[in-house]
């Protein structure tokens, strides 16, 4: 029998007691780096940017979109050019307070219209498809100082590619409440798993996180649709002493090929969930919101024109939402290419004016203190061509 008899209470103290003795980047002292929070929400299925940040000032929009255009009177007006979808009222309130901005025409580095390949590229952070097999947030953790207090949490039953890689990350979803009998089984398993490089570290981390969730009162029964509750519990993880600084959510169901809807309907329901996650985090984080930056991003946008079944097909550029108390005030991020016929990419899609990596890199540099050279080479390989967009936080 191994001497590594780990009860989950032990596991917790062990996880929390990993100290920090050394920091490579002295500008970001421990207290700063660990205090700063980064949340990434991956909206899967190609979220329709033209319904998220409605280009009310673009004269082509209404014609291109027909029935599914968001009427200018419904859009939550940001300025004379853009409004938010009416279901994004929580994010709109943040925008009014200077704590949310939109980047209306961003895209991944390659022009791909496959969901799965595009999500791979978005999350791996590669310059080309199949260039790297781990996630850019995982490589971010590796690029921070050894022993850095920054760790990451994925929320949901499956671990997304964006967090996969060599650095151990936590994951949590509701429904794992533990009993004392399970504690005993868990300690036996720690021994049986010691030569399994995948299951051993995963179970140890999972037990520690579940223990934390119970302490935080987040061990609620499983309710698949309660996204706001997920978000509040995640906020508790983020604000806990020694807790993770980075959290990732996945939302799916954005692939609206038919009957997409307008101010109400299929897409509106999904956008309501997105708004719930953001407001849940805002409420749950309390004062820590001021040190938080949040990015909501999708793999690509949808066709500029409505299709034959009152939906939209796979397109190119889409909208990215930035939020958080750490954000600097400002207008839209990046340029608006317009929806004029001769400006559409391949005569069908909104054309990109900004590479997603530029925003990610800017956030990681300014907000998380990631080294510039690491950003250009290891976190986002071969990405010097897409320079960090700084000054957002």
């Amino acid at each position, binding site marked *: 029998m191994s001497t590594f008899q780990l009860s989950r209470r032990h596991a917790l103290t062990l996880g929390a007691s990993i100290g920090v003795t050394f920091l490579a980047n002295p500008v970001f002292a421990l207290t700063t780096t660990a205090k700063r929070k980064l949340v990434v929400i991956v909206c*899967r299925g190609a979220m329709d940017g033209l319904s998220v940040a409605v280009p009310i000032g673009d004269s082509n929009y209404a014609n291109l979109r027909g029935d599914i255009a968001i009427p200018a009177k419904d859009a939550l007006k940001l300025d004379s050019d853009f409004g938010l979808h009416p279901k994004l009222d929580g994010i709109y309130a943040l925008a009014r307070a200077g704590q949310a901005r939109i980047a209306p025409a961003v895209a991944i580095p390659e022009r791909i219209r496959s969901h799965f390949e595009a999500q791979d590229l978005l999350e791996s952070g590669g310059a080309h498809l199949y260039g790297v097999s781990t996630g850019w947030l995982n490589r971010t953790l590796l690029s921070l100082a050894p022993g850095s207090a920054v760790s990451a949490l994925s929320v949901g039953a499956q671990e997304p590619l964006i967090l996969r890689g060599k650095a151990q990350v936590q994951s949590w979803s509701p429904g794992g409440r533990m009993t004392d009998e399970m504690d005993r089984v868990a300690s036996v398993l720690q021994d*049986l798993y010691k030569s399994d490089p995948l299951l051993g570290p*995963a179970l140890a981390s999972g037990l520690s996180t579940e223990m934390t969730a119970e302490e935080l009162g987040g061990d609620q029964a499983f309710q698949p649709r309660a996204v706001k509750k997920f978000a509040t519990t995640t906020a508790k993880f983020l604000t806990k002493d020694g807790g993770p600084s980075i959290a990732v959510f996945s939302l799916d169901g954005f692939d609206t090929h038919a009957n997409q809807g307008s101010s109400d309907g299929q897409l509106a329901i999904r956008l309501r969930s997105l708004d719930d996650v953001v407001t849940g985090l805002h409420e749950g984080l309390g004062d820590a919101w001021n040190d938080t930056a949040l990015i909501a991003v999708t793999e690509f946008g949808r066709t500029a024109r409505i*299709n034959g079944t009152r939906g939209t*097909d796979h397109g190119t550029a889409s909208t990215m939402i930035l939020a958080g108390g750490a954000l600097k005030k400002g207008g839209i991020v990046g340029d608006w290419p317009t929806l004029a016929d001769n400006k559409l990419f*391949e005569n069908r899609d909104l054309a990109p004016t900004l590479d997603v990596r530029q925003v990610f890199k800017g956030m990681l540099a300014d907000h998380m203190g990631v080294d510039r050279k690491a950003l250009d080479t290891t976190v986002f390989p071969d990405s010097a061509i897409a320079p960090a967009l700084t000054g957002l936080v």
Partner: protein
Amino acid sequence: MMASLESVIAVTRFGLGAQPQELQAASADPRGWLKNQIRKQGADQPKGKLPDTPDRVATLFTLRGEIKDLKQEKSHSDMKPEDFKGERKDIILPMLKGVRDEIFARTVLAAQTTAPFRERWTLFWANHFTVSSSKLQSAVLCGPFEREAIRPNVFGRFEDLLIASSTHPGMLIYLDQARSAGPDSMAGQFRDMGLNENLAREIMELHTVGADAGYTQADVTEFARALTGFSVGAKRDSRSEQGRFVYRSLLHEPGTRKVMGKTYADRGMDQAMHILKDLAAHPKTAEHISRKLAVHFVADDPPPSLIEKLKTSFLESRGDLSALASALIDAPEAWQPEAHKFKTPYEFIVSGYRAAGAAPADPQKEVVLPLTVLGQRPFASPQPNGWSDAASDWAAPGAMVKRLTWASRFAEYYTQQSASPVDAALSALGERVSGSLKTALTRAESRTEAFAILLMSPEFQRR
């Protein structure tokens, strides 16, 4: 008697995990035991009274009518929103219960079948041609789709399976084909209908040649134009057409199409059929399918020589899936002793029941709820590429805790109190049982605790 390692591989890697006595049954001739499960007439069918597609669609029409009436009533009275919601739920509930019955019936089949390779092979194809419950209309057709389009065709020709899938109302509704119309068709000209390219794209990317096959957006659009007319009989159609595949020439885009370099004359429905047959026979399809099979059965990063063998079989047999199954069984690469694959939640739960010699009794509590918590509610793959086969997708820290929670509760109900824990382990895993697992089982406080440990052991989690 200790079962041979090859029989353990046959039963766990190719099958669904051992039932009591199954290792013995397979041990004399593991390859023969597997090959005997291949049969031309296809997979087993789940038992129970499960309505077919036209029945399901008819119910859907009725419910839609009832909901319409309810909305009318609401607009003419002061019905409260919560009452409206409640009544709407009452209308939809029987439909959702039908989905649960389908999930339950196929899980019971998997837990009890004595031809588990046949069922695993079937589940692979059902996942390859995913129809998901993400919308109500496709939710009620997931079960019928699997029973009608997939199960009868899993040991026939790939081309027939592809056509069965691409013409089934479940797929046509799920991937938005049923209302897609050519811009120059009659419906496109006069009824404000238009093209939807969803099914065309996913057939090329997911079902056949794969995303790296070198096709372009123009190929996808051309194929989508050819597919216009593939539709589903609606309420206004004749009774014999309702809820069945119909070809509507009024929706079909006229003209010659060019897909992946080849020109297809306009012969109505046969135009798309011709393209489907060419896609089915394409070498890139053989490669795509072979890689996926190798990943599913053998390893997340499978040996290239195995993929090559499967590809050769696929091409030489012209897509004969019985021959392909035999080629997989004959490949030495598939019998390597290391267990690389990590069970998905569905495989884990099914193999748990098989180890206990039991089948689930309660559809909601024993099947739908645990699989939802573990992230793999049947028929509910979030995207049309189906469930992942990779360990890295399923072995997240939180997911391991969920497995432990499930195993502990399952053991409370299903531990065989007559057998010794070590014997139970040998009956499930034979030669795979390690010394340290034996020790742990012997030291457990109770048979129940020992069974939970067995279910969670690396030997049981991997196959």
